[in-house]
């Protein structure tokens, strides 16, 4: 099978940001994303999911490297200063080049 390399951006941030973040991702041109509920700890303290309001979400977007950079840059500019958030990038192999 032919494989293609794409970039996966993973963002872990406050659940309250879900709507705003999705709007942002779609505005930049992401064609898909996957979200899971999470909890965690970081420089902004512990974030438990006992209370929906207080939990984290973990968002993954697979796309081409250029878009991944734009996402990282835009998300960083818009949200980093004031929200609990981390972002990291990885390479992934996909089967359908046209999809991502």
């Amino acid at each position, binding site marked *: 099978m032919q494989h293609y390399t794409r970039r996966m951006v993973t963002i872990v941030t*406050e659940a*309250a*940001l879900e709507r*705003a973040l999705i709007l942002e991702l779609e505005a930049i041109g992401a064609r898909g994303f996957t979200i899971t509920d999470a909890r965690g700890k970081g420089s902004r*303290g*512990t974030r*438990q*999911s*006992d*209370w*929906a*309001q207080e*939990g984290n979400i973990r968002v993954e977007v697979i796309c081409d490297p250029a878009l991944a950079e734009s996402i990282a840059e835009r998300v960083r500019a818009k*949200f980093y*200063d*004031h*929200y609990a958030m981390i972002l990291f990038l990885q390479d992934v192999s996909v089967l359908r080049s046209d999809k991502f």
Partner: protein
Amino acid sequence: MLNLDPVILFFLLGAFAGLAKAELRLPAAIYDFVSTLLLLAIGLKGGVELARAEAGLPAIELLALLALGFGLPIPVFLVAKFLGRLPRADAASLAAHYGSVSVGTFAVLIGHLATQGIAYEVRAPVWVVVLEVPAILAGVLLARGISSGSVEWKSLLRELLLGRSIVLMLGGLAIGWISGPEGTAPIQPLFFGLFKGILALFLLEMGLIAATQLGSLKRNAVFLVAFGVLMPLFGALVGAVLGRAIDLSVGGITVLATLAASASYIAAPTAMRTAVPEANPALSLTASLAITFPFNIIIGIPLYQRLATLVAGF
């Protein structure tokens, strides 16, 4: 003197479990279930009573509520900014929280009044709805200034008016009003019969949450505790006087005083997080949830009731 109704004891149990780090986490879904039931029940109860009595909110009352909602944040802001020396955004956020209201406090209050057989204006749930939003708008204005174009007012307002508590309470109210006492009879065992039991569960959870919130009380501890206790007293006074001015019953004055004293811990935090992200969310939430909420339900309510009797005498 203290309100030690069993539902309050549930709050204390939850707070104890939270502080002792007992293995008592309740999943978020339970919180959602219990709070949905409460909000609907409060709305339904009001609606059914409205259907029984005369309907409608006098214009003067509406004006008074709007004045309270938009006005109360201003002294809160000034105190937080100049006495508390907080950054502008944080002061504005506190103003939004303390200007707005807490439905949980309202639920404890109506349970308490029911136990004591004290009547109040049946349209009180409408007051809660009317009081929730204006202070949050005021808080955003205080943070940004009027000229600021950076606030997306339209989407903020939309989000506020379609918030969980407003939709469920107004929805319940409408259903109760349309269906009346007889129409709602078959659903009353769940919404009315279990009300206090559900409230007990809700307060158990609030105790747990309040306790974990206390952990954030490291910096500004002295100011926050003083603020969280004194501000509701000030709010209650304003609310009581206003209630007297618009000729509410003693029960109604108690309700308005308690609402003014209460601080939002759901609508305000959510809205401020989006509209004024540079405000420290832990600060306002700790004050509102871990200090003012327990203070109000345990010590405040009996106090505000006396205050109302006093004020009604003038």
